């Protein structure tokens, strides 16, 4: 990919976030998509490419009245939307499509019209994980952490503190689910879900959606919105069962996606003004900081503890409050992307003054997959 060849011209979340039993899953996709089209002055007939995860993208296209000539149904968890952005850049550069819509909608809390998740006991997960009492993500995504803590002699309070710092950012956002200040003691003493993880170290479960529209940088100049250029991108995957993660202290998917986003963008760590790291659980920003190379091994928790990522710090991280405080419908990656776009447009309620670059790093499954996008509000 050529840095800056493609830009995000339309971006929006659903009109409401939170508990939305009055909207079905597919309508959350449509509400976000209509908002993104309105954001940049487009109609369904102007869109010629569609991408979404978990749902069939054709179903979303038809519901919206879009006739796609490019379809991407990559569905590898909550970072699928970062991967859709990467694929959209390649598709637009090569002429496969001119204007691509990426949608996400998820009735994660209210479960209205959701595509069912099947369980088959003959699949590998059915044979080798489900018999041991795994249920939802808190019973799996957290398993590697004790090994990390022991390897680097890190106290669990350093993980709890991630939730505390992100709550500081959430306080800026009227749309955030939780905005009241937290202390490390609050997090440590909250109801235990999967020891050593209390409920305040686990993400929310809410309803919502978001959508992005991308086109060539050349066409982006004619849109009413400020273009947000894609400077680089990476994607990767490792496994689909957390028990088979090769290193419990570091994600192979994070490392490979990270290598690719640095290489394709040509940027270095000191060039990054704003950072999003998908936080389904409080340990993820720590793994992300280390696997992306912002910190040495075992140092991510200290980096956050020392205030580097909090409001006023040198590397603002998860400035919407993240999946821990802002919202999390199940596949959170779209909301991380939306905050990166707001920061690049200068419209975030927690705006980082003068930010010119934003790195948005996602996870899929339980450390299964990763997608990473480098944005800038300046053409290279």
């Amino acid at each position, binding site marked *: 990919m050529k840095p800056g060849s493609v830009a995000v011209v339309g971006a929006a979340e659903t009109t409401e976030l939170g508990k939305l039993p009055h909207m079905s899953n597919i309508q959350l996709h449509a509400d976000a998509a209509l908002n993104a089209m309105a954001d940049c002055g487009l109609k369904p007939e102007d869109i010629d490419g569609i991408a979404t995860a978990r749902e069939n993208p054709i179903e979303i296209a038809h519901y919206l009245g879009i006739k796609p000539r490019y379809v991407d149904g990559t569905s590898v968890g909550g970072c699928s939307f970062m991967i859709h952005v990467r694929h959209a850049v390649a598709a637009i550069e090569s002429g496969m499509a001119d204007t691509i819509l990426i949608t996400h909608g998820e009735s994660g809390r209210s479960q209205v019209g959701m595509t069912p998740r099947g369980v088959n006991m003959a699949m590998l997960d059915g044979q080798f994980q489900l018999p041991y009492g795994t249920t939802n993500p808190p019973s799996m995504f957290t398993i590697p952490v004790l090994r990390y803590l022991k390897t680097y002699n890190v106290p669990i309070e350093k993980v709890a503190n991630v939730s505390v710092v992100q709550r500081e950012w959430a306080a800026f956002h009227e749309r955030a689910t939780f905005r009241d200040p937290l202390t490390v003691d609050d997090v440590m003493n909250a109801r235990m879900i999967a020891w050593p993880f209390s409920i305040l170290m686990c993400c929310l479960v809410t309803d919502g959606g978001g959508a992005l529209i991308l086109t060539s940088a050349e066409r982006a100049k004619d849109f009413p919105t400020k273009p947000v250029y894609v400077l680089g991108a990476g994607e990767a995957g490792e496994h689909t069962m957390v*028990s088979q993660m090769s290193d*419990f202290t570091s994600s192979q998917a994070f490392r490979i996606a990270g290598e690719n986003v640095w290489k394709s963008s040509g940027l270095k760590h000191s060039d990054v003004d704003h950072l999003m790291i998908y936080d389904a659980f409080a340990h993820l920003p720590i793994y992300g900081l280390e696997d992306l190379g912002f910190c040495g091994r075992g140092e991510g928790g200290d980096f956050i503890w020392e205030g580097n990522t909090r409001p006023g710090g040198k590397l603002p991280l998860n400035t919407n409050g993240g999946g821990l405080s802002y919202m999390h419908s199940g596949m959170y990656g779209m909301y991380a992307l939306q905050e990166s776009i707001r920061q690049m447009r200068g419209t975030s309620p927690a705006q980082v003054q003068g930010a010119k670059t934003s790195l948005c790093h996602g996870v899929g499954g339980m450390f299964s997959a990763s997608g990473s996008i480098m944005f800038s509000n300046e053409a290279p």
Partner: protein
Amino acid sequence: MSEKPRRPVPKATPETQHFWDGCNQGKIILQRCKDTGKAYFPPRPFSPYTGSRNVETFEASGKGVLWSYIISHRDHPNFDMPAPYAIAVVKLDEGVQMMTNIVDCDQTPDALQLDMPVQVTFKRLTDDINLPLFKPAS
């Protein structure tokens, strides 16, 4: 079996049948890549290291260490261990990782120490499935 199994019951596939057959005899049967000599899991009839079909099965020691875990505080609708119960990953002496439960052991952070030696034990769920679990090594 008259007693209803109180766990989700694995269903073997042609590629994993030898593993479950081994469990029925109280053995952990792993596979090894004959080109690299390295063991692997879960079962498949080729090497994930080289892509070669030049592989063999062998009986593993059934010994390993507790590699990492969580203690789930949520009740499970179909499970014979009451919450809180630990969901663990063990690293076998042969180098592979397996998810499991640690039985004959309190489900507490004090009792469950990382790197403690564990050995395999089995729980019969059905006539076909004898599920491998682990317990502290004696």
